[in-house]
């Protein structure tokens, strides 16, 4: 464990729970909700954001002393856009179906507030290694929420995980369906993403009352 000091570990672990980008910092919700109807796109999205945020934080951190503060937004946007183009091209080459399904939402990583937020709040003031850890940590926190939402929406909505029928066959009435279980088709529709995240926030804040807002 020589590589990670205690402080460094906190950089990764804090965003996973009590400083989560989605449920606490309220960043990056835009793309988080639209693609979570199934588990697979959620995981791809999470990995893409880990890549973009980790590398982007390093690049910005390396350039932090030469970026004029007046045009830093544009510089940051260009850095993110470049990284996102790489992700987009890789997905188009190796997972074309998935990239069609994610449609514009890969492009929208550019304007994902987590990315700009972490650039502004952390990468501009810290060295590359710390910035990398912070980027990966926050992207992981984002990914965890995405995967939780994707898991429940796919399981309850279509009774599958990664496309496998884990609850039995809904047409042939095997498994759980034999005793009268039905899929909740509503879970795959967009509004349920919001409600599922709302419930996650509810659970998290009931467990840790320090996070409760005044009003």
């Amino acid at each position: 464990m020589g590589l990670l000091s205690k402080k460094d570990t906190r950089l990764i672990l804090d965003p996973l729970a009590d400083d989560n980008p989605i449920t606490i910092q309220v960043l990056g919700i835009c793309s988080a909700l639209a693609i979570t109807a199934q588990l697979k796109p959620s995981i791809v999205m999470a990995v893409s954001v880990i890549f973009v945020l980790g590398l982007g934080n390093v690049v910005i951190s390396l350039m932090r002393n030469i970026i004029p503060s007046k045009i830093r937004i544009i510089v940051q946007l260009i850095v993110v856009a470049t990284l996102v183009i790489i992700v987009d091209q890789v997905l188009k080459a190796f997972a074309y179906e998935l990239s069609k399904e994610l449609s514009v939402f890969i492009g929208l990583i550019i304007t994902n507030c987590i990315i700009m937020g972490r650039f502004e709040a952390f990468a501009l003031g810290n060295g590359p290694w710390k910035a990398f850890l912070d980027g990966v940590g926050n992207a992981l926190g984002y990914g965890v929420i995405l995967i939780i939402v994707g898991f429940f929406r796919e399981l309850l909505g279509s009774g599958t995980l990664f496309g496998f029928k884990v609850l039995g066959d809904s047409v042939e009435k095997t498994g759980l369906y034999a005793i009268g279980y039905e899929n909740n088709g509503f879970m795959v529709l967009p509004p349920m993403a919001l409600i599922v995240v709302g419930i996650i926030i509810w659970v998290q804040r009931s467990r840790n009352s320090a996070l409760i807002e005044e009003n």
Partner: protein
Amino acid sequence: MLEHIELFFKSIFVDNMVFAYFLGMCSYLAVSKKVSTAVGLGAAVIFVLTVTVPLNWFLDQYILQPGALAWLDGNRETPELSAYADYDLSFLSFILFIATIATMVQLVEIIVEKFSPSLYNSLGIFLPLIAVNCAILGGSLFMQSREIETAGLALNYGFSSGIGWFLAIVAIAAIREKIRYSNVPAPLRGLGITFIITGLMAIGFMSFGGMLTGGEDAPPAPKAQTSQTTIQPAIEKEIETTPLVVSE
């Protein structure tokens, strides 16, 4: 004319930026505590979308699309004759679109400050925020992926999606002002209840989905894309597997 009216209502209600695609959620949640500020941000979004979507439409048509560079040697009408017919710059669209948006936001800020200080004061702080609002980039990317045909339609699309976003943020701000007086469970206060209300509002907006189908002859209006793509595989798989089980 009819297609303009259809696109207008479709972008506001059926394909609402917030409720169908969750675009611009960050500022939607952060700036919706008071109606007055929500109105300011909403107006700024309408304005910037109306400017950037047509601009990016021209970029897409004349630079980015496969073969779009044909106008360089005068073969705009017959792209296959052009020496530039094979050029496909569409991978550059993210970077060009975001650059246009960032530049336009900056430009708009300067112009508004010069000619209408009162509007600038009311929009002032929100304008720079808008460059990183997903609704703006999302508008341009949807314009590109849906292959909107004319500049007029692109203008219409930008304007009406802006109005849709405006409606959404003003509505949630009004609800949040009222909900302050209600007895919300403590852990749900603030963010949690806003999420759930937005979800309920999105369910409400889904009822507009059938609005533009217009009877059996007309082609069905494409409903929220996300839901369509996600439901499809589940149904297909069920059909695929049924014969297998029967043969057993």
